[in-house]
């Protein structure tokens, strides 16, 4: 009991501090709007009344936490999950693009790493391009990808998944190259004394040695993958997805809606990373990692 207390207490203190600062910030940032309204109605307000108005504006500059919480609750739990007004509906769209992109990116990342580790020519010729690919701002290239893929008949989920893949293969390639090269000379010499083939060295030494590296990369990659899917929804005028929700919120000044969607995105990200973490723990335990 005391152990769990000591673990949760710091987190809760930070949370309380954030909420407090948030409320103060909401009063401060919404002050202009509140004064406008008071002017229109010609009323005077006490500090408490002032704060109350600041926390209940329809389109505040910064909505109060409880406004966001209420919007989040209503759009998650009180609406039909197949309705475009439900956040679950949007999270599902973005989540599936994320997962497809993540799967493709993992595959591409691993294939590139295997190539780079196995053939010196690929190491020299490919790595600079891989690094260069990550220096291109995704916001600039995302519309191009969507236009090009749209022209060959790929619309909907696939273009977003491709953008996700484009972003998330990189950490996997880098992590896997490191992992596949991690066996020490002794472990490699041992294989040589058995006159093992290159394929056997790969399957029985390099691959298992890289698994821990792979999972570290996967946790980074799945979070990036989510960002990629959301970015992919922005320039398309997509009808569904958290990115579309963010965009429509900003068109109509629905700040409360934007914040609720942001929290949904954060929650989705945490759940995805946690899932990878669970698979990691199960896998590494089977591979004899210290608990």
């Amino acid at each position, binding site marked *: 009991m005391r152990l769990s207390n000591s673990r949760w207490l710091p987190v809760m203190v930070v949370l309380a501090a954030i909420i407090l600062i948030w409320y103060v910030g909401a009063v401060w940032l919404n002050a202009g709007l509140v004064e406008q309204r008071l002017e229109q109605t010609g009323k005077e307000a006490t500090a408490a009344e002032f704060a109350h108005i600041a926390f209940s504006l329809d389109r505040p500059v910064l909505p109060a936490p409880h406004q966001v919480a209420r919007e989040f609750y209503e759009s998650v739990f009180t609406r039909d999950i197949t309705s475009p007004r439900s956040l679950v509906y949007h999270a599902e769209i973005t989540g599936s693009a994320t997962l497809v992109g993540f799967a493709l990116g993992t595959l591409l990342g691993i294939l590139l790493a295997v190539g780079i580790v196995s053939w010196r020519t690929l190491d020299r010729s490919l790595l600079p391009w891989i690094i260069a690919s990550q220096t291109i701002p995704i916001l600039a290239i995302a519309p191009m990808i969507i236009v090009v893929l749209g022209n060959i008949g790929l619309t909907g989920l696939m273009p977003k998944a491709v953008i996700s893949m484009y972003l998330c293969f990189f950490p996997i390639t880098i992590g896997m190259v490191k992992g596949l090269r991690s066996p020490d000379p*002794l*472990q490699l*010499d*041992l*294989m*040589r*004394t*058995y*006159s*093992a083939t290159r394929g*056997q060295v790969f399957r*029985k*030494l390099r691959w*298992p*040695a890289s*698994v821990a590296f792979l999972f570290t990369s996967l946790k980074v990659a799945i979070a990036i993958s989510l960002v990629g899917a959301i970015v992919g929804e922005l320039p398309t005028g997509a009808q569904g997805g958290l990115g579309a929700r963010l965009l429509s919120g900003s068109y109509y000044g629905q700040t409360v809606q934007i914040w609720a969607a942001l929290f949904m995105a954060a929650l989705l990200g945490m759940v995805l990373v946690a899932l990878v973490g669970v698979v990691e723990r199960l896998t590494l335990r089977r*591979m*004899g990692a*210290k608990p």
Partner: protein
Amino acid sequence: MQTLRTDTTMSADSLRPASREDNRPVAIDIRDLSLTFRTADAPVTALSNVDLQIRAGEFVSLIGPSGCGKTTLMRVMADLARPTSGHITVNGLSPEQARLARAYGYVFQAPALYPWRSVRRNLMLPLEIMGVPASEREARAARYLEMVGLKDFANKFPWQLSGGMQQRVSIARALSFEPKLLLMDEPFGALDEITRDHLNEQLLRLWEQTQKTVIFVTHSIPEAVFLSSRIVVMSPRPGRILEVIDCNLPPDRTLDVRETPEFLTIAHRVRVALRAGHSYDD
């Protein structure tokens, strides 16, 4: 796929070979072997004009200070390093052919166990690579774990074992595919003295039982004298053989033999030879 020998275990009471005048086949034949490493500043002569013949069934220790080339010499036998000049055959083959024929088991200074494999599966690693059928793999793993006294630890992972146990696993792993030749590079160097004594005794029994040829690198004089049928004393800069000392202690010896005059006489000879190699060094 290489076929594996299964007839290695012989009765423990078979006689130990007398080291010189027997007519067993030559297991390792080294003539005028030199090896020079090219380094950034100056070439380093690791081995210079080494001549050595080792007969099948011998237990030969290579002893000398650090940098005398003893590990390099063993790596040449194992085809993990290439000589610059000279001739070497292992079981009548070139080292590379011998390696491809899986003629030897190599025990490294560190256990080099794969941390993601249980003890049992570490033992089966060479067998998997050599294409031994699964049922036979299990049988061999069980047999050799029993031999090194670790059958209760079969499903543990390496980190759950002490250093001495890990090294025993690595020895069992080298034995598991039943090579005629065992190359051991300071296998007990990192262990405490009590564990080391214990493993020395076990290794001696094992050698008597299996009649393997063992080449053993060490820098411990008592270890070399206790285990060996011959001791090759080497010296550094350049790495070369100073002296080869016969060492014929009774086959059924225990650690107590280290108190006997015969033992001390041989140990003294080794020490004198080692000192001779060092005299013009500093």
